[in-house]
């Protein structure tokens, strides 16, 4: 008996738990991320794509996680309609092209000699549920939204923004088509508008859509029961000549369409009422164009010329203003002010242009600007700048060169403060404190803290975060979301009123074990 007991005890001791920590004996490379940190903030919560699982989840304002039922489709991209509550989802799902009616998985499809094909849809999601889905051609990847007017039908236009790469072609592919989407009902209607539509603009009342394509501009009337072409502008009479739009804008009265052209100093001015085209000769091909409603003028800058042009909207006369350095980007700051900088060359100037008077104020910043944002009040701007390696200048200049920099620009007094940053900025947002005091919220790469910069006195404070962040944005309820570099999902909701934080985590493990079940068997191809 004692012998038996000794044997049993020895075996039991040997069977004790030998794993005190998680085993990790190798590396598995994933094809896709568990979650996409480009969150979309709708009125009912934050929508997050789970690319590997092919799912869509909603993080409610209370921090709860709900899965949106897309009927087995995988969300490819998300965007929020101007009403703030309609999420538009491009999604895709597999079907089996086989004669076998019993096929229910991708593996069975292949065993039956079938082939997996992918269908594409455009789904409207409200309050966490799909309200309408329409199958669409595979190539639509961009959406342009008409301005939101309460009580009026909301319209979006889906089109192909072709940036190279393969487009799935099954049957016939019509690249001249755009898709009009009624965001209220989800109904869609296609319309041929010219080869390769590249941009869509809307009049301020949403009554007309202006679709720009190669050598052609089509104005579509959206006010009737069916969408119809109102005007077609052919931009060339020579079939061998191609006119591709570079930038475009409507004047504040919606009467004129201004369109710059790739590789040309011509600015097309299309009168939408008189259906006439005028061409304005510019100093060169403009790199950027901004319409200012206050001054009722358009500002243009050129990558190869150190000048800005101010063009009125009556006679389209151009007034040129000399700059010290060429600019390639414009940022409207409101009240007739436009900021100009160069985002493609290693220049150091930022200009404040008064679009009405042509007055110019130059700010000299330490490093080349990568991004420029204006706070909602229009009084302050923050210019983010990258490191540069010039090897010249004083030691303090060299020290700035070695760092990322955030320059605070006071657009009222023209003062500026240059703040050295410890690492690359990965997010910037603005908020307002007591008494209207504006703050910039800055996230830095690898830093597990949020930097709050008081724009009035350039003083900064830090709020500790649970881990380094990758992005920031505003929520519909006045808070901010902060995405973190955590594979399994981590989002902080920050209330700027009291700096309180709520964390939502662990939502990205959903669908960790995806299966190959074909989700929509009714749609199988025979």
């Amino acid at each position, binding site marked *: 008996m004692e*012998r*038996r007991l000794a*044997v*049993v005890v020895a*075996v*039991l001791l*040997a*069977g004790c*738990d*030998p*794993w005190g*920590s*998680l*085993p*990790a*004996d*190798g*590396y*598995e*490379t*994933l*094809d*896709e*991320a*568990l*979650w996409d*940190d480009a969150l979309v903030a709708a009125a009912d919560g934050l929508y997050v794509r789970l690319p590997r699982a092919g799912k869509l989840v909603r993080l409610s304002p209370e921090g709860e996680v709900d899965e949106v039922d897309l009927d087995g489709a995988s969300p490819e991209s998300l965007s929020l309609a101007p009403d703030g509550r309609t999420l538009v989802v491009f999604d895709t799902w597999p079907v089996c092209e086989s004669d076998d009616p019993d096929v229910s998985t991708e593996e069975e499809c292949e065993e039956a000699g079938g082939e997996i094909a992918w269908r594409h849809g455009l789904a409207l999601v409200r309050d966490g549920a799909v309200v309408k889905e329409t199958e669409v051609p595979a190539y639509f990847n961009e959406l342009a939204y008409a301005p939101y007017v309460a009580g009026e039908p909301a319209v979006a236009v889906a089109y192909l923004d072709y940036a190279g790469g393969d487009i799935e072609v099954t049957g016939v592919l019509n690249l001249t088509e755009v898709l009009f989407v009624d965001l209220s009902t989800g109904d869609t209607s296609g319309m041929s508008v010219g080869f390769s539509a590249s941009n869509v603009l809307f009049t301020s009342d949403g009554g007309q859509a202006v679709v720009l394509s190669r050598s052609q501009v089509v104005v579509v009337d959206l006010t009737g029961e069916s969408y119809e072409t109102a005007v077609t502008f052919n931009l060339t009479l020579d079939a061998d000549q191609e006119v591709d739009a570079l930038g475009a804008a409507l004047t504040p009265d919606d009467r004129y369409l201004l369109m710059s052209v790739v590789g040309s100093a011509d600015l097309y001015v299309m009168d939408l009422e008189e259906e006439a085209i005028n061409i304005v000769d510019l100093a060169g091909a403009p790199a950027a164009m901004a319409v200012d409603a206050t001054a009722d003028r358009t500002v243009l800058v050129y990558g190869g010329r150190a000048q800005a042009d101010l063009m009125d909207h009556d006679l389209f006369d151009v007034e040129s203003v000399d700059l010290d350095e060429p600019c390639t980007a414009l940022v409207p700051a409101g009240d007739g002010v436009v900021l100009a900088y160069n985002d493609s060359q290693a220049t150091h100037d930022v200009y404040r242009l008064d679009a009405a008077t042509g007055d110019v104020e130059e700010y000299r910043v330490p490093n080349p600007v990568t991004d420029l944002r204006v706070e909602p009040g229009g009084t302050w701007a923050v210019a983010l700048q990258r490191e540069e390696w010039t090897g010249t200048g004083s030691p303090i200049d060299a020290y700035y060169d070695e760092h990322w920099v955030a320059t605070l620009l006071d657009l009222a007094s023209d003062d500026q403060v240059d703040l050295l940053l410890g690492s690359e900025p990965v997010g910037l947002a603005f908020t307002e404190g007591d008494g209207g005091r504006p703050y910039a919220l800055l996230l830095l790469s690898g830093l597990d803290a949020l930097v709050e910069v008081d724009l009035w006195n350039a003083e900064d404070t830090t709020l500790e975060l*649970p*881990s380094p962040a990758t992005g920031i944005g505003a929520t519909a309820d006045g808070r901010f979301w902060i995405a973190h*570099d*955590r*594979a*399994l*999902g*981590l989002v902080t909701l920050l209330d700027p009123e009291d700096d309180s934080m709520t*964390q939502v*985590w*662990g939502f990205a*493990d*959903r*669908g*960790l*074990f*995806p*299966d190959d079940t074909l989700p929509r068997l009714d749609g199988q191809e025979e």
Partner: protein
Amino acid sequence: MRPAPLALLAALALPGAALAAKDEVSLEIGSIATPDPDWDLFSGSGRLSTQGLRGGWAFHDHVALVGGWHRGARGMTAGGEGTGQSDFVAAFSAHAFSLGAKADWELAPWLAPFATARAAGLLGRVRLDDDSEDDENLNQLSHTAFAPGALATAGVELRLPFHDGAFAAATSLEMGYAWFAPLAYDELGHLAFRGFTVTWGVGARF
């Protein structure tokens, strides 16, 4: 599933065989196969290695009631440069329980082929952690699921008798088929274990 009952009937139908079944206890190692592609998250081997113990009570000349408990754990670091996100550790640990009958036939005092048929259960736990160096990391996630199943194996046992056969050291090797229903993790999905299983053990017969 078929070989085990047949072997059991064969053993019971052999009245000339020597008394073979004994009480037993063994320490075992083995593996359970999984064809599930999602297992790649935890291991590239396609199987779960296990360790555990088995005990048996001989209630018949040729038949014993056997029960076992085994445990296995595998894990890997998962991620990918192309995903733009940090890595995470995915670990799977399981307790496998089995209870059933074992029939053997002592061809010689040192040699006894056998077959088993057992009902089984698998308690699988998935643990995920995207910052395993931080004990307070929020994303230390755990999901547990249970799946019933069955085992059918056949093998051979080598014995080294002591004290006129009253006590024997033994080693055994058995192979067969294991089937478990999918482990259903509500939000994560399913993970299935089924296929070839092999076990090697050392222990005592008394």
